[in-house]
């Protein structure tokens, strides 16, 4: 195929668009390791700001990771069985429940936070603990877990698999953990990555729910931007990237693997 002007103009446009997105990221990351942003790179590179961020915000970063993990555990424990019931025993009630579950995704995080504050704001021990933020994150991320797992479960004829296992003597729990869960793994993994990523990056809700003692990573970031010198905010962004990028890459790899598996052609011959 000859490459004509159309090809080159498309290539050009793609590059420009990519640069448009990538340049600010690089600029911001660079700013985090520059001695003085206003003087530019000529002022030299340093890790000083990164360490400073760590000193100031280690608490927030660790809290965020902790909340993300707790959120993952809760959404796994609640989401996998929920997805199972949704797919296996569909009814009008369950559909309604699914809609209800998706509501926190549809309404603005601020509104959800407000609702939580109005309802539980008075419970002082709870209001001031990280569990309050966890509640918000679980409400916000659970639908993603459920959807992701349910999609895989819906595609795998669970009824038939379970009947096969039951005929071999397997009771419910054995079927659930030995057959259903392993076969739903792609959905569970995808859901897990999504939940962790969303939880670490969540700002809207968290900003409303946090207290000075329960600041998460993105809240700390806003704080750094607002009150510190620009280099510190940028170094903070850098740390954020380092944390979130592996998750995003893993998510992409997982999606690719799923696509490749479904594209595989059945080469087995019916020679037997």
């Amino acid at each position: 195929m000859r490459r004509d002007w159309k090809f080159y103009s498309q290539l050009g446009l793609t590059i420009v668009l990519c640069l448009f997105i990538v340049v600010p990221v690089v600029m911001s990351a660079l700013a985090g390791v520059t001695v003085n942003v206003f003087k530019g790179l000529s002022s030299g590179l340093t890790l000083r700001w990164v360490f400073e961020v760590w000193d100031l915000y280690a608490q927030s970063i660790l809290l965020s990771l902790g909340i993300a993990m707790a959120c993952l555990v809760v959404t796994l424990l609640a989401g996998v069985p929920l997805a199972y019931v949704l797919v296996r025993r569909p009814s009008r009630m369950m559909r309604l429940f699914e809609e209800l579950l998706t509501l926190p995704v549809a309404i603005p995080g601020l509104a959800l936070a407000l609702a939580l504050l109005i309802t539980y704001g008075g419970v002082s021990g709870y209001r001031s603990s990280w569990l309050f933020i966890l509640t918000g994150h679980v409400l916000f991320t659970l639908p993603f877990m459920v959807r992701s797992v349910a999609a895989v479960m819906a595609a795998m004829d669970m009824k038939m698999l379970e009947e096969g296992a039951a005929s071999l003597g397997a009771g419910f729990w054995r079927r659930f953990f030995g057959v259903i869960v392993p076969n739903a793994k792609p959905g569970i993994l995808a859901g897990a990555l999504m939940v962790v990523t969303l939880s670490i990056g969540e700002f809207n809700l968290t900003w409303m729910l946090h207290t000075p003692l329960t600041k998460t990573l993105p809240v700390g970031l806003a704080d750094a931007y607002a009150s510190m010198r620009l280099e510190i905010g940028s170094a903070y962004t850098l740390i954020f990237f380092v944390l979130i990028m592996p998750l995003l890459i893993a998510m992409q790899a997982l999606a690719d693997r799923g696509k490749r598996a479904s594209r595989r052609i059945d080469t087995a011959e019916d020679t037997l």
Partner: protein
Amino acid sequence: MSTQIRLRNCAKTFADGTRALAPFDLTIEGGETIVLLGPSGCGKTTILRMIAGLEFSDAGGVISFDGDDVTRQSIEKRRVGMVFQSYALFPNMTVAENVAYGLKVHGVPGKERDARVDAMLEMMHIDMLADRRIDQLSGGQRQRVALARAIAVQPRVLLLDEPLTALDAKLRVRLRTEINALLRKLGITAVYVTHDQEEAMALGDRIVVMQKGEIAQIGTPREIYRKPQNPFVADFVGAANRMTGQMRDGRLHIGAHVFDAVDAFDPRHGAIIDQGAVELYFRADGLSPCDLDEAHFTGRVEAVSYLGERLRLTVSGIGPQAVTIDTHADDVIETGADVHCRVNADRLTVFPAVAAHS
């Protein structure tokens, strides 16, 4: 010892009100292979699932295995082997792990388990596939794995729901032969569901022909083939040609012709049909082409199809609908030609005419 299955007064009405099965009794002897045969939707799978414990009979039904009442027992406890049309293999396990699953559930220790898995795989000729993933197998191979998995746990009964329907014709015949040999070798009580008459004849010690949730006839393949008890069974097992006639004093009149040697016993009423309008069902061998001077009837050839060893003619003008007649493969017959034929009265199945049709 193989298990006898008894179903007494079983019936099934689904939650949505669908009446899938009218009350029926059925006894399946130990070691017997019974085939449930009938068109789609007639309730075959429902009976199978009731025996398995995946559906429960309406109140009043009793199912027993060798006299043990299992009516309320769940499938996990019944020790039934199941083979499904869509295999239902576990995609997260290898072939060997699939076969080992039931043994693991039953607590068979590791060494013995491995030995039994190997023996099963060998018996089904899939030992070289032991470490394959399920999605790397062909349909025929999958069905072999499914069979191995079901019989590995030495179930009391083996239940097969259209296991060959998803396979191509040649493979179907081959696996059918193997399944037949396997069932004889194991001597296990088996219930086999199919909508394919040929498969039913080839596999069944007895065949249960079903029609709209009721048992239309139970009998050996020969009985079903030669003595269908009602027009539905006759039609379903291939005697789809129909003529009408009259019985007068025990003799059959078709048009101006009279035939003596007919079997006019009506099993449903337990009596010989002596008088009255009758319907005659027959296969292509019920009429044979002949010369004009010997002929009972003359019809017109509507279509000719070449079956290899013979030629099948579709002929109008003899019965209420077109009938099929076989002739020599070498005959040259054109569509539109006249064909003369004789009635082979001993090949006719006689039923009292139903007022509704004819």
